[in-house]
């Protein structure tokens, strides 16, 4: 019965979210051209159809899943789409980003449904952990391969295979989270035992620290070779936090912190792009028209929005560089104001809350750890980019999950969302909250 209530809540919230998105779409059009978009009916229909399809798949394949995941993603995805469409149409070189993002949303929801369809039990994934590791490493390294990788906007994070280009790092996130979770389930006892140093054991035998150092090494490689500070930070945070949760040993966080600090200082001194980022964070005004331009424009946009925002379609967010990807949060903050930016922040907090609730409720360690990993990915990635855009932290370019323009990111995040839904469904089944015949 509880599961049916969850599904009803989900459906209700999806309808509400779709109406909000359609309303925002209408307002953006009114703001820009003072006319109601001609396709508002079909638009609402498509948004509803997409997410109701995802809802029906959930009903069918994961009836006990948490009911908030999908509506939150739908709302964020929809708001993101409205802004991408609005930004692209007013830009001097429209690139058809809105149509592309719509296509990616369809594919993302397809990926969500397929993940639910194929991953019937999360624990099945545990078996392929080294396969996932290899895939993950291959994906991470792909942009570095000559002929495949390409450097765009100073970061080497793109891979070109035939006509298709994508950011392999986004998918590496998914498989590495699965790998970390299964690896840590296996090693958590060993890693949890402190034998070193002898006089006051704090850490496990040094040989077990290998993976920690490996993760650290990887982060450094990503940061230096691919110049992708955001992903580097994200992977490192993911691994350290998962190790900490798995082993219940705070010392790891300490060691990780020391490694991180050391790495940061070295990177700051040794690499110009890291140095520049930190300088632009500390004082963007000294290069106001150069490297500090992005953050300053972001601030101007946010300040211009004030409390209530300029209104959709009525601001000037096209002045922020890369507004539809990394800086989309600033565009939202300008046109929807503090109310809108706070709403987005709380959406992510809600998503984090759902993820952690799923993790706490899950009994099997693998599921618990995987849910934790996915939650960390959502929570930390969103935080990193929003903090960068607001200049709370140095800017490290990552996408804002579900909101930013980008196919790889959107699809990967829907897969992560499906995995979370699956874990919560497994838990619900175990607790007897799902009538098995409903799943027949």
């Amino acid at each position, binding site marked *: 019965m509880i599961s049916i209530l969850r599904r009803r809540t989900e459906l209700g919230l999806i309808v509400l979210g779709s109406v909000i998105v359609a309303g925002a779409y209408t307002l953006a059009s009114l703001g820009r051209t003072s006319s109601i978009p001609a396709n508002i009916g079909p638009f609402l229909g498509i948004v509803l159809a997409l997410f109701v399809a995802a809802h029906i798949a959930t009903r069918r394949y994961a009836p006990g899943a948490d009911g908030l995941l999908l509506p939150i993603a739908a709302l964020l995805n929809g708001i993101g789409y409205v802004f991408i469409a609005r930004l692209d149409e007013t830009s001097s070189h429209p690139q058809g980003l809105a149509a592309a993002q719509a296509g990616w949303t369809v594919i993302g929801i397809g990926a969500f449904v397929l993940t639910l369809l194929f991953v019937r039990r999360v624990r099945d994934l545990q078996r392929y952990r080294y396969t996932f590791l290899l895939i993950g490493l291959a994906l991470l390294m792909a942009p570095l391969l000559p002929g495949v990788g390409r450097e765009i906007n100073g970061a080497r994070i793109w891979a070109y295979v035939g006509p298709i280009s994508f950011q392999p790092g986004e998918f590496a996130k998914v498989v590495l989270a699965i790998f970390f979770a299964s690896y840590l389930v296996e090693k958590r006892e060993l890693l949890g035992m402190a034998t070193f140093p002898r006089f006051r054991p704090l850490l496990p035998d040094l040989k077990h620290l290998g993976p920690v150092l490996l993760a650290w090494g990887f982060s450094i490689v990503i940061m230096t070779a691919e110049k992708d500070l955001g992903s580097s930070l994200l992977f490192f945070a993911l691994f350290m*936090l998962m190790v*900490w*949760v*798995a082993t*219940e040993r705070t010392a790891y966080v300490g060691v990780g912190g020391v490694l991180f600090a050391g790495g940061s200082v070295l990177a700051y001194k040794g690499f110009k792009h890291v140095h520049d980022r930190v300088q632009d964070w500390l004082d963007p005004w000294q290069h*106001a*028209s150069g490297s500090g331009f992005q953050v*300053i424009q972001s*601030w*101007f946009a*946010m*300040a*211009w*929005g*004030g*409390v*209530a925002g300029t209104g959709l379609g009525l601001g*000037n967010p096209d*002045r922020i560089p890369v507004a539809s990807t990394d800086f989309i949060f600033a565009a939202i*903050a300008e046109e929807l*104001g*503090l109310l809108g*930016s*706070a709403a987005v*922040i709380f959406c*992510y*907090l809600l998503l*984090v*809350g759902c993820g*952690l609730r799923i*993790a*706490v409720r899950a009994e099997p*360690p693998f599921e*618990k*750890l995987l849910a*934790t990993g996915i*939650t*960390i990915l959502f*929570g*930390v990635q969103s*935080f990193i980019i*929003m*903090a960068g855009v*607001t*200049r*709370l932290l140095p800017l490290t370019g990552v996408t804002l999950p579900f909101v930013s323009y980008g196919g790889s990111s959107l699809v990967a995040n829907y897969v992560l969302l499906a995995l979370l839904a699956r874990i919560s469904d497994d838990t619900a089944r175990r607790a007897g909250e799902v009538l098995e015949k409903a799943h027949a």
Partner: protein
Amino acid sequence: MNKQLRRLGAGLVACYLALFMMVNWVQVFHAEALNDNPINTRKIVRDFNQPRGKIIAADGAVLATTVPSAPGDQFTFQRTYPEGDLFGHITGTFNFNFGATGVEQTYNDELAGVTVSQEYQTLRDLFVDHQTTGDVTLTLRKDVQQLARDALGEKKGSVVVMDPRDGSILGMWSFPSYDPNLLASHNSKDAQAAKVFLEGNADQPLRGRAWQERFFPGSTFKVVTGSIGVEAGIVTPDNPVFPTETAYKPPDGQPIQNFGGESCGGALFDILRVSCNSAFARMGAEDIGQATMEAGVQRFGFNTKNPIDLPNAAVSNFPDTKNSKAFLGQASIGQFDTAASPLEMALVASAVANNGVIMTPHVMKDVKDDNGKVLKSFDPKVWLNAMTPQTAAVMRQAMVGVVQSGTGTAARIDGVDVGGKTGTAQLGTTPATSEAWFICFAGEPGKPSSVVVAVLVEGEPGASEGTGGRIAAPIAKELVQKVLEIQQAGG
């Protein structure tokens, strides 16, 4: 592991809380500073793409208004100034690249309609977009300004006309002026060329010399010196009686001569009437002293920022004379490094006229919304208490004497109480030129004075004490008559 999960949750909540606070800071608490940042063009672009309120003279003439741009223009609206150069310095101009000047600058938010009281007049306005631009009505009148321009003619100089009772500026003309339409062009090349041309002119037509430039006030400053002496109890109408001499010879420097080597002396009324240099130099240097002079001039607004609601008002200066009686003597008669804007000298006259009180000078009368509802109006405020009413009464009598039977007789008007003071500041000797000054107040007999005029004509050939009275006083007289006529008609 659940304990760690809870801590992880708490940690993430802390991160997001920090983010939320940061967003609050940027969007609310620090927003105004960011919006006003000079490299942020959002405000300017907004201002150029929306209608803007009018600037209107007190007698109804439209001085600045907004019309739709020509097709193909980058902005929606074009600012125009129908009166051309007549109010160029006052309205200023509104240019995308150089920003706003004059009233366009000081009352930018009111004209653009973005003050809080304009945006949110009722709760409904929170949700409904409505026309918020404000029309700024000035205290200046077109007829007064026009007369000032005609009376001064093609001579470099300034005319300030004000009401001493409330500080409102009725006319303020500086020649040469400029046509703000030239600088408001949206064609940035044209506007830039006009700006370069105007800036290259040695006579500085872009400067409102009436309040943005300083000049030697010459003998008009004797009103200040005399007032300080009376206020300090050092000088009365009868005492001291200054010796009749051709020059005041300070112990430590050059003698200070009277014009044309004449001899003069006597008590306050006599020496002001004939504008006796030796007597006022002696009064400042020997009787009043540097400390009392410095404190006194401050009460008249020297060495202080002028509060007028126009940008870049000059700070009138009274110098540090470094314990030199020679320097102090010169400074006391408006020479040495004493420098005042014509506006400041008008305010000196207004102090005498208004029982010793200087009202805050202002050009804004009120701001109305597009329904004619007054959103705000300028409340007359006291700027300075220059002297007691008793001192003011003494000085008033002294200045009336100047017009009755002294150097300022050219400003005498039958049936009107006029008091004034001439001034001639000599500049250079080959050829000798001088700045001709006249400051005066006037009103119906037995009533408080209702108009103050300061006139400065620059670059007059020759240098005699009569220059100010001969050149500047007739201009002031014309304006006094005009303003009194308007006031009697209830305007």
